[in-house]
């Protein structure tokens, strides 16, 4: 408890709020949030700002702390240290009922013995509103989530996707300032999931409700979020817009978790150059690295260039296709440079390209790795984790 007090006066105030640029204060502000389970640290010193109306995804593998963070924001699991403010009010020690949020769980958590209408009205009934007003609101919500005819059914009579819509309507019924979604799509079929994620996103835009969604599905996060918070081992690895996360991953972990990436062990050489085995490659942005420092080189398989590569192009080399994996719309090839076996990477070739270039296993291709697609990660960043 004493630690909580310490945070109210000390470092929390000192931090200048990068996310809260501009006059409007962030709707949700988290400072120094730490949660331990025995000797395991689930969250360690989390700082986070979420702007009003923003859709933020917590993304990470299972056990990374994303759900713990969500539950701490909701007040369902109390943090050991740190501070949470919602709408400018310090709610660090407030019970869930005194925070302003609605929540949707992976399991839907619909009350099975109540009809769809009663489920949606559950939070309204308690506020002693006139019955007609509640009924009107429920009808409106049913229409909002696209289930106008299903009000008198019981949850068990609905499909998984329909149940999740009801859960969403129930969470939105009381017009909460913050909507929390805990892996809301994970229990659904792939097709339903795709459809519902578009609907949730559209609904969120329409209502403008500040939303946090927890997911382990990077595609979901990229498609839905205004901003993604990538988490691993209880810390935030990177925060940024989906494109930023994808294009400029801050660490090998983010690079690997969001999209796929081939990694090459390399050593920094002169400015603008690294060495893989005997082969020198031109890169961008390794100025601060001393020559000889070990680095890790990352590149996305879809960014390997194949068409019209000339021998004098930057980082062009001849490579053997040692393996081909058919993945429907594209093929994933394993390439090994002929001059340097350590230069071994994955490349995605569209069906079109496969036909045009007559690519086959065992064939030789000239490929290029444009310097701007090569990301250089210092090795010590990884050791620090």
């Amino acid at each position, binding site marked *: 408890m004493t630690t909580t007090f310490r945070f109210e006066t000390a470092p929390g105030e000192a931090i200048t709020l990068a996310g809260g640029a501009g006059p409007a204060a962030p709707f949700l502000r988290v400072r120094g949030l730490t949660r331990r389970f025995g000797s395991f640290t689930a969250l360690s010193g989390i700082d986070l700002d979420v702007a*009003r*109306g923003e859709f933020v995804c917590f993304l990470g593998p299972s056990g990374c702390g994303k759900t713990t963070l969500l539950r701490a924001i*909701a*007040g*369902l699991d109390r943090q050991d240290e740190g501070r949470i403010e919602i709408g400018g009010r310090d709610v660090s020690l407030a*019970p*869930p*009922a*005194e925070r*302003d*949020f*609605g*929540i949707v*769980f992976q*399991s839907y*958590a619909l*009350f*099975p*013995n*109540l009809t769809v209408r009663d489920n949606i009205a*559950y*939070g*309204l009934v*308690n*506020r002693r*509103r006139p019955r007609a007003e509640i009924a009107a*609101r429920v009808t*409106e919500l049913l229409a*909002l989530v696209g289930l106008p005819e299903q009000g008198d059914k*019981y*949850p*068990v*009579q609905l499909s998984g996707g329909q149940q999740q819509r009801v859960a969403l309507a*129930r*969470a*939105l*019924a*009381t*017009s*909460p*300032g913050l909507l*929390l979604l805990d892996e809301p799509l994970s229990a659904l079929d792939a097709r339903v999931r795709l459809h519902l994620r578009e609907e949730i996103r559209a609904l969120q835009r329409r*209502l*403008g*409700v500040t939303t946090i969604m927890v997911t382990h599905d990077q595609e979901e996060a990229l498609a839905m979020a205004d901003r993604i918070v990538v988490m691993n081992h209880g810390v935030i690895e990177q925060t940024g817009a989906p494109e930023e996360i994808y294009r400029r991953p801050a660490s090998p972990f983010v690079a690997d978790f969001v999209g796929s990436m081939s990694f090459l062990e390399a050593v920094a050489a002169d400015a603008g150059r690294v060495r893989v085995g005997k082969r020198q490659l031109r890169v961008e942005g390794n100025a601060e690295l001393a020559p000889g420092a070990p680095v890790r080189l990352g590149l996305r398989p879809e960014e390997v260039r194949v068409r019209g590569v000339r021998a004098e192009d930057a980082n062009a080399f001849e490579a053997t296709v040692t393996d081909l994996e058919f993945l429907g719309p594209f093929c994933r090839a394993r390439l090994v440079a002929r001059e340097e076996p350590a230069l071994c990477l994955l490349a995605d070739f569209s069906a079109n390209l496969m036909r045009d270039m007559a690519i086959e296993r065992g064939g030789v291709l000239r490929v290029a790795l444009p310097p701007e697609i090569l990301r250089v990660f210092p090795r010590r960043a990884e050791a620090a984790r």
Partner: protein
Amino acid sequence: MSATTGFALSARPAPRRLLTEERVATGLVALLCLGLVAAIALPLWMLLSKSFLDTEGRFIGLANYARYFATPALVQSLLNSLFVAALSTAIVIPIAFFYAYALTRSRIPAKGLFYALALLPIFAPSLLPALSFIYIFGNQGFLKELLFGASIYGPIGIVMAQVFYCLPHATMILVAALSLADGRLYEAAEALGASRWRVFRTVTLPGARYGLVSAAVVVFTLVVTDFGIPKVIGGQFGVLATDAYKQVVGQQNFGMGAVVGMVLLVPAVLAFVVDRVLRRRQVALLSARAVPYSPQPHRRRDLALLACCIVVGGLVACVLGVAVWASFIRYWPYNLSLTLANYNFPEFDSNGWQPYFNSLLMASLTALLGTPVAFLGAYLVEKVKAAPLGRAIVQFLALLPMAVPGLVLGLGYVFFFNAPWNPLGLLYGTIGILVLNTLVHFYTVAHITASTALRQIDGEFEAVSASLKVPFWVTLRRVTVPICMPAILDIAVYLFVNALTTVSAVIFLYGPGTNLASIAIVHMDEAGAIAAAAAMATCIVATAIGAKLLHLLLDRLLFGRLQRWRAR
């Protein structure tokens, strides 16, 4: 926020109230803690401390224990108890195993009927099989010759009656253990060409191993701690349970009674610990991907097992039937014409029918008060986050009665509620203490039943209600209780039936106006009115079975309609 449709709800700040959810929850946990400490922990503590005091209440250390082990008659009783318990276990476990095997691993017909037959003894006080065996093998028994001159009054009678009395408990455990089978293991064994015997030895038996040990432990404890059977059919053959009764009721030697109680506690606590350890180990036995085993028809095996079931099930029905039949006989064995004269209780006992109605009242109160308490207690332990230490204490105290024999609990109550300093002493001699004692005696099973049901429902209901600002007691009333209704009914019927049939816990506690039916049976049997005792036992059995049938009927008809939401 340009939010939805102007339904201005969120604007209102959450009101600060005196009765916050956390305070209510903490208060309830504290209340339950206090109640359980007073009803379980303190009586047991009194029993323990009493065993170190002499008759004048002076502390004498282990002197009582020393005297106990220096008294040959008492040590003989201890050995006798262990002997009959071991023998009964050795007989009942194989019978129950093959019975359960037939019910789970064969294709015999009428499995439901056979299972019901094996469970019949649960609805009778343990006194009833003892009475039946007196009718069958006693001095006037019609099969007396089968004993070749040996007397039924003693170890033979005790063991026979115990086998009958313990059969349902062992059968239930083994049916549960044997129905947990992974069909893939059997398919693999068959594919590898193992013989039937080898499959039985290498797959079936190891799979049921924990169940077997658990059943043996339960039966052994039941026999050691049972009071009714040795009281009625034990004759001069002393056992621990009758010793405790004699020391306290007969000789008013409370210190020594407490020592016997502590000795009785040993096997029960050991059994409890063994059972807990085994349960913990058993978790990994069945993976989530297991395929249920469904037995293939096999003519010879099925016929043999059917014969086994008919014999065992038939015998159970016969033993029960003899007592019922005998209760309608004018004068056993000389005049077998039927009569209702034995039900004219005022002729045999000055209390007349009063004990029966007392039992009904006591059982009803136990069910009506105990069910909500046990359910709420389990709810607090499982679903509420407040007061973690308090909830841990509740959980521990709720599981404790399982390890305490009724007789020991009864003794503890005598000491605790009789203590001059205890304000709760005004309960002594009332129906209240009988209800409290019976509830505590059977509290563990009620608690576990409720916990199991609660664990099966979605753990996020409380979180959702909190987010909707609905206090937990509203969700408890509107959602949790309706969902758990079948389990709640189970608990109520369990408490009712056991309160009706129990003897051991209440034998020390009844007062002049609160004599119970099961105690009246003991007294009428002591007075030689064995037919009337059988008649009273029949009344109990009929009431208990009636309650169970009513339960089944309610479950089928009423809830089938009310709980439409369960069906797709």
